[in-house]
């Protein structure tokens, strides 16, 4: 109901409106009688005005009654609009979005500046007796005050401590913190006011439970106030994709990035270790995501801090984005094969020597350091240390070996499983495939005649990217005569035999990559070993599988996430042994703090709490750099369009949180009116005065009319 009263009990005073009515009738009964000399003049004026006087009398009575009712209504504290029961003594819980998007420009300040000003104005306008609590929601979601404070200048002044950060809005955390604070609120009802840019958010499964917890607290009403940024083009850097393979120092690599330019032909800059090394210009229209590539001469081995930047715009937070460029010195490749048998020939069992030779022709010191071991003798240490493990008709690795392989895979290593020996079918089904997370179905198949061709399913796959048509046709001309029919799963098919049987599949497992070649390298199994594309194809495949190699010590995170990173490979054990010397620096310059060391099985993990700024966190111990973490602004805080109040209203309604009022359009100086309603008392008293004036005027006018009509 739009009309409410602060003191509805005083409305009983409306009974006083009966007073003028009673007086009216009493006065009519209490007529004085006077003798008069001559009535003719009185009769003349009375007869002509008798009717108007009757009307006037009732009009006067009506005006008096209305005036009295207006006075009573004014005393009862009438409020128009706002929320019922906003009679003071309630509690107002204000959630201020301090996430990265709140740093967007708005006038001479930012969205957060405006939101804080609105919140301060609201706190100052709250009625006496009201209490207030502030939740700041950015990289962390926490209450600003230790306990609920009385509304007023002191609470409003405390808002000056609120700052924007590079974090994302965790709405689930907001709901949980709101429920916690609402439960402690000294007054009821609790008005939960969400102030911010009402940004787009991906739905989180934790929201319904958090919303339910909030609803269980007493009398919570949700209100929205959208504080939008200045209109205007806003762009940013959405993501950065270094080549998905192991890089070699000195080679030219393409760093891909998805960007949103805020103007056509916008220049983006790539920085490595603080130095601009490449530029790229967007070609598409402003405001839409598009891919650009930076041609980079790969720096020396190690971890490199990289940035992609653009000129700052309305929302500065997403105009630069960090990444870690990991360059391994050499990619360690371990070829694990089944024990050679008589008759396997020079190429070894499954033709394992073909890939070994293709990666390091003649044992040259190329980018690959290839070692080969029989599955019967391979050690877990070798499996763990290898950047890429190539399994060629390998026999059982033993439980420890299999676990080491799986762990290496999940930790960022690469595995190529090439199996074509039908004798290993049972081992594949029972052990190898389940251990690698693949469907335990592998049936040996033989091709008829000269065998089957294989089709490149996706020419844009990194394995084939850059190959011309002739090269791709050469790949597809290879005939395959023996293979395993693997059951389809969610793996991507890279090569597909005629008839649809997958020949080469790949999938990501943990941070590593797994490729399955459904055959091996002998000529009997297929013509790969004699194809001119064998060497480039195998090198590309292993390089791509080994993209995680050299990334030990590198990690990427978004603001608000816990920072976790494995120490770089080769870190001295003694360094890790002294946990007290572990320090993490950044992303804010000079803000060094102690780092944690955790062990996941045999793998050490460095960690620290969540960062609230974008940039780099560097884990060190003494002079040794152990890890580098690139911390980016959450995607939802970047150039995503704002949802606005309407979509937030629907979003909250889906959580059974109905929005009691949308304060988005309200005058900042009248936000309290929107809560408790607009105070109509002055208008009621003014109306009463006007009615009384009208009463006097009507009375006087009647007298004047009497003269005028004569």
């Amino acid at each position, binding site marked *: 109901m739009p009309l409410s009263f602060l003191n509805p009990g005083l409305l009983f005073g409306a009974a006083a409106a009966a007073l003028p009515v009673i007086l009216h009738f009493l*006065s*009519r009964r209490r*007529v*004085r*009688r*006077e*003798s*008069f*000399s*001559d*009535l003719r*003049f*009185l*009769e*003349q*004026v*009375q007869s002509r*005005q008798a009717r108007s*006087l009757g009307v*006037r009398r009732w009009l006067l009575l009506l005006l008096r009654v209305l005036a009295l009712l207006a006075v009573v209504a004014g005393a009862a504290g009438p409020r128009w609009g706002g929320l019922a029961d906003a009679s003071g003594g309630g509690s107002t819980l204000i959630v201020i979005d301090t996430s990265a998007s709140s740093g967007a420009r708005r006038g001479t300040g930012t969205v957060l500046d405006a939101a804080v000003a609105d919140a301060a104005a609201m706190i100052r306008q709250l009625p006496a007796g009201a209490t207030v609590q502030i939740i700041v929601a950015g990289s962390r979601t926490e209450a600003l005050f230790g306990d609920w404070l009385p509304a007023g200048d002191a609470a409003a002044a405390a808002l000056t401590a609120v700052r924007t950060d590079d974090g994302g809005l965790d709405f689930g955390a907001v709901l949980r913190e709101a429920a916690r604070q609402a439960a402690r609120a000294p007054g009821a009802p609790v008005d939960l006011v969400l102030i911010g840019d009402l940004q787009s958010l991906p739905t989180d499964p934790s929201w319904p439970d958090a919303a339910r917890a909030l609803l269980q607290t007493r009398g919570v009403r949700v209100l929205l106030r959208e504080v939008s940024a200045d209109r205007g083009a806003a762009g940013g850097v959405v993501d950065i994709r270094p080549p998905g393979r192991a890089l070699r120092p000195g080679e030219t690599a393409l760093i891909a990035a998805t960007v949103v330019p805020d103007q056509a032909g916008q220049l983006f800059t790539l920085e490595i270790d603080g130095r601009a090394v490449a530029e790229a210009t967007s070609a598409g229209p402003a405001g839409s995501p598009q891919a650009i590539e930076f041609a980079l001469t790969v720096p020396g081995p190690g971890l490199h801090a990289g940035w992609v930047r653009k000129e700052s715009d309305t929302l500065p937070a997403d105009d630069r984005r960090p990444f870690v460029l990991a360059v391994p010195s050499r990619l360690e490749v371990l070829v694990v094969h089944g024990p050679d048998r008589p008759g396997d020939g020079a190429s070894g069992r499954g033709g394992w020597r073909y890939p070994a030779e293709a990666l390091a022709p003649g044992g040259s010191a190329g980018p690959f350091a290839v070692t080969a071991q029989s599955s019967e003798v391979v050690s877990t240490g070798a499996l763990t240390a290898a950047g890429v493990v190539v399994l060629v008709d390998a026999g059982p690795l033993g439980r420890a070996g299999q676990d080491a392989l799986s762990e290496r895979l999940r930790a960022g290593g690469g595995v190529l499983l090439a199996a074509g020996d039908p004798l290993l079918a049972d081992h594949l089904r029972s052990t190898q495939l389940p251990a690698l997370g693949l469907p335990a179905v592998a049936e040996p198949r033989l091709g008829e005649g000269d065998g089957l061709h294989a089709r490149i399913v996706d020419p844009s796959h990194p394995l084939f990217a850059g190959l011309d048509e002739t090269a791709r046709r050469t790949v597809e001309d290879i005939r395959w005569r023996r293979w395993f029919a693997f059951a389809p799963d969610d793996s991507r098919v890279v090569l597909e035999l005629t008839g649809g049987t997958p020949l080469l599949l790949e999938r990501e497992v943990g941070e590593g990559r797994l490729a399955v070649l459904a055959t091996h390298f002998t000529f009997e199994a297929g013509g790969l070993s004699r194809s001119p594309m064998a060497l480039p194809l195998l090198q590309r495949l292993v390089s791509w599988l080994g993209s995680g190699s050299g990334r030990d010590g590198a990690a990427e995170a978004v603001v608000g996430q816990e920072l976790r990173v494995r120490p770089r490979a080769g870190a001295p054990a003694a360094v890790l042994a002294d946990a007290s010397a572990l320090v993490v620096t950044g992303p804010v310059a000079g803000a060094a703090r102690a780092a944690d060391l955790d062990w996941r099985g045999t793998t050490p993990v460095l960690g620290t709490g969540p960062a609230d700024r974008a940039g780099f966190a560097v884990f060190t111990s003494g002079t040794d750099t152990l890890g580098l973490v690139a911390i980016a602004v959450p995607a939802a805080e970047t150039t995503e369009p704002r949802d606005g109040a309407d979509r937030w209203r629907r979003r909250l309604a889906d959580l059974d949180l109905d929005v009691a009022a949308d304060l988005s359009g309200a005058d900042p100086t009248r936000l309290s009116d929107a809560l408790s309603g607009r105070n109509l008392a002055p208008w009621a008293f003014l109306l009463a005065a006007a009615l009384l004036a009208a009463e006097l005027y009507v*009375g006087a006018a*009647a*007298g*004047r009319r*009497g*003269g005028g*009509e*004569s």
Partner: protein
Amino acid sequence: MTSPLLTPELAGQLGRIDLVARLVVEGFLLGLHKSPYHGFSAEFAEYRQYIPGEPVANMDWRAYAKSDRHYLKVFTEETNLRATILLDCSASMDFRGDPRRLAKKQYAAYLAAALSYLLLRQNDAVGLLTFDQGPLESVPARSLRRQLFQVLKVLDRLPAGTGTDLGTVLHQVAERVPRRGLVVLLSDLMDDPARIIDGLKHFRHRGHEVIVFQILDPRELDLDFRGEVEFEALEEPGRRVRLEPAHLRDAYRERFDAWRSELRRDCRRQRVDLVEITTDTPFARGLGAYLRKRRRLY
């Protein structure tokens, strides 16, 4: 010009009409700077031969001493004023808007008494006739000293009047006043102006000079009543009007003033002096008006 020794309020408290009349007139005359009444007594006209047996009061003894003949001084009695006071005793004259003031009839009675006293004091003849719907009592005009007693006796016991028929009464009275003289009408004139003027014209036609004292209560002029009032006509008990005077005051005044203006205009046309006085007006004003008229006449 006046020394209001006796105000209407005080006169009402005195009650005795003879005393009121005397005090009014004496106070009035004392306030005059120069008396206009010297020589008002009967004026000498001629001598005539004394006829034995006649009173010797007017014998001119000096002429007798010189001529040894008896002559009587003859005064021109024709020059004496015959004033007839007509007093309206209708019920409307009983109206008194404020208990502290005199009713119109009482005021008129005191004024009539004072006029009589003044007239007789200068040896004018005074007569009185009271009326409401018709003549009630009359005292023929004489200039005798005891005439005042006769007049005051009537004025002291004026009857409660009924309605007004002023026009008819004036015609009747005009026929009854035999000789030309001064007619003084004391009334509120609460009647049809045309009929009143018609009656007054009758007097004028018969050679009378007419002076009309319209006596009104101040409340009749301003209708100063509060709240809702039911007015009842004094002359027609049962006839009532219920209204709130505060809201009709202006209209009432406008009509009332129009009525008075009409009377004023018609009187002026008929050369009738209309003196408008209210019951809170000192009697001297009425006496002054009379004297001005008297001076114009003689």
